[in-house]
């Protein structure tokens, strides 16, 4: 399995015949120049630029005096954007809510996702091949569906009167919540109900991905290992805990990191299902960036929030590197 976030050790290949022939050099240069130019122009340059922008009070609506509209009407403000994150204004308050909500969302999504996908993968792996394919195909269906359509769909399911969920809850004789997505006072175990609703919809869409990864990893565990454990008298639980889990550790780490990274970047359900509400209870960093950059045109401030998001992403990646270093592959 190739890992996106972990650059595997790169072996520099020593081809025989060190120097390229002139026509080979022309081929390499002719092919790589446009490719690297596009990469630098649309990936490296934006990264540098967003770092520059977060030190400016920049709006695309104002024409600046200097390079790329910086300076003049879009003045350099030093660390003001970052200082503002700790200020008492409404904007700063919303940012801090978005930051906390992003963390809450990621921290809750990860364990719930794992508790569903890991046991489910073991169950799917234990059934007959044909049924295995059948269940895998069904569980993966939400992953390939349009996130916008899924968000609209769940928005309707959560509808207090016409929705499927409350109808089901009433049908089994319980009292459903007054409103899933719009009641600012509703919460469950200290988490706002709207946030829980988004988490459920997001996990519904996303769990098939981790499931497939786990199933692939389980298939990679040699049957002999399990047989050996059985011969030694291990029961199913011991086999899982002492044989499968240690072998699954690298996959588990990969899945944890990928799930964390992608849940930090979620936008669609927060925009389409709840629009950050009620009372900013589902406002998250990406939505905050989008709103301030493209609706209120405060791109300097939004760039500073982007840097906060980037720091979170780097932090998770850094932890992964540290954990991997102590990891021994089988």
């Amino acid at each position: 399995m190739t890992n996106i976030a972990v650059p595997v050790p790169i072996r520099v290949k020593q081809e025989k015949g060190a120097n390229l022939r002139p026509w080979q050099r022309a081929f390499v240069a002719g092919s790589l120049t446009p490719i690297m130019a596009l990469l630098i122009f649309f990936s490296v340059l934006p990264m540098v630029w967003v770092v520059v922008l977060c030190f400016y009070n920049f709006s695309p609506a104002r024409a600046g005096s200097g390079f790329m509209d910086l300076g003049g009407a879009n003045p350099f403000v030093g660390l003001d954007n970052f200082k503002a994150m700790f200020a008492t204004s409404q904007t700063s308050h919303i940012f801090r809510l978005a930051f906390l909500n992003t963390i809450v969302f990621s921290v809750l999504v990860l364990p719930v996702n794992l508790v569903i996908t890991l046991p489910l993968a073991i169950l799917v792996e234990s059934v007959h091949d044909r049924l295995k394919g059948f269940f895998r195909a069904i569980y993966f269906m939400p992953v390939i569906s349009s996130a916008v359509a899924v968000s609209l769909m769940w928005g309707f399911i959560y509808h207090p009167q016409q929705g499927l969920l409350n109808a089901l809850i009433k049908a089994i004789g319980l009292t459903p919540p007054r409103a899933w997505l719009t009641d600012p006072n509703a919460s469950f175990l200290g988490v706002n109900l709207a946030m829980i609703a988004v988490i459920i919809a997001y996990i519904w869409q996303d769990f098939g991905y981790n499931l497939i990864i786990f199933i692939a990893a389980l298939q990679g565990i040699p049957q002999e290992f399990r047989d050996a454990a059985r011969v030694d008298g291990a029961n199913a639980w011991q086999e899982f805990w002492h044989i499968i889990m240690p072998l699954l550790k690298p996959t588990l780490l990969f899945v944890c990191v990928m799930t964390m990274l992608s849940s930090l970047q979620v936008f669609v359900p927060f925009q389409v299902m709840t629009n950050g509400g009620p009372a900013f209870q589902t406002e998250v960093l990406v939505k905050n960036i989008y709103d301030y950059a493209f609706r209120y045109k405060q791109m300097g401030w939004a760039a500073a929030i982007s840097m906060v998001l980037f720091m979170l992403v780097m932090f998770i990646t850094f932890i992964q590197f540290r954990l991997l270093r102590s990891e021994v592959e089988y």
Partner: protein
Amino acid sequence: MATRAKSLAITPARLVHLGNRTLVYVILLAGATFTLLPFIWIILTSFKPASEIVRIPPTFFPEKWTLKSYQTIFTDPRVPLARFYFNSTFVTFMRVFITLFTSSLAGYIFCKYRFWGKNIMFVLILAQLMVPFQVIMIPEYLILVKLKLIDNLWGLIIPGMVDAFGIFLMRQFIEAIPDEMIDAGRIDGASDFGIYWRIVLPQLGPSLAALGIFTFLAVWNDYLFPLIVITTTEKRTLPLLLTWYSSQHSTRYDLTMAASVLVMLPILLVYVIFQRWIVRGVALTGFK
């Protein structure tokens, strides 16, 4: 005979085993129901008349099946559906084919050639894997403004023509192609591009399929990038059409759900056909 009789005997251990098997299937079926129910619910909803949708409590199966919601969408002059399908298809196919080409070509060169600056360039590519689009979308937008590519379908294609992950992935797969094969091509007088095109590419089948399918899904379903690039109605892609349409008819769930079904339908058909490839591709690449 004796062994056969023994194998049919009902022992306590066998009963426990049978009970366990049953429990496994019950859990798997419950999971499948949970996964499919929302899909079934919106498909059924899209066939209900508007009067039935607002009824409390809601019906599950339509009492009266109707195609009214689909007719309303198809005949709405503000919703030229064919146009939106074309926009999404055009952007997606361009992105898929260009990404496959640039990724495999660059992957081949990084894998099989030695040249000045190679390591620095490859580290630069790897570094891009750590930067989410959401972090750099503001400058991305400003660059497109400068290039006058805002509100242009090419604005959705050109920034995505080179994919760092695709290059990284292709390089890994090309590693498995033996150097001898490339040397053999060279001896037969093939040009460098000829070797890439006629020897390397044909062997990349499954990995190209995996990368292609995932680029397809990512671009087809993408919402945030078109949202900041596209501004006029007739250039919208399907996800943009869907949010716009639902905002126009926020209380008409029959229309919104029918539109959602129409947007999801092509991708579900693709999934039914390529299901094996798609699932294998995830396992193969860990791509998301």
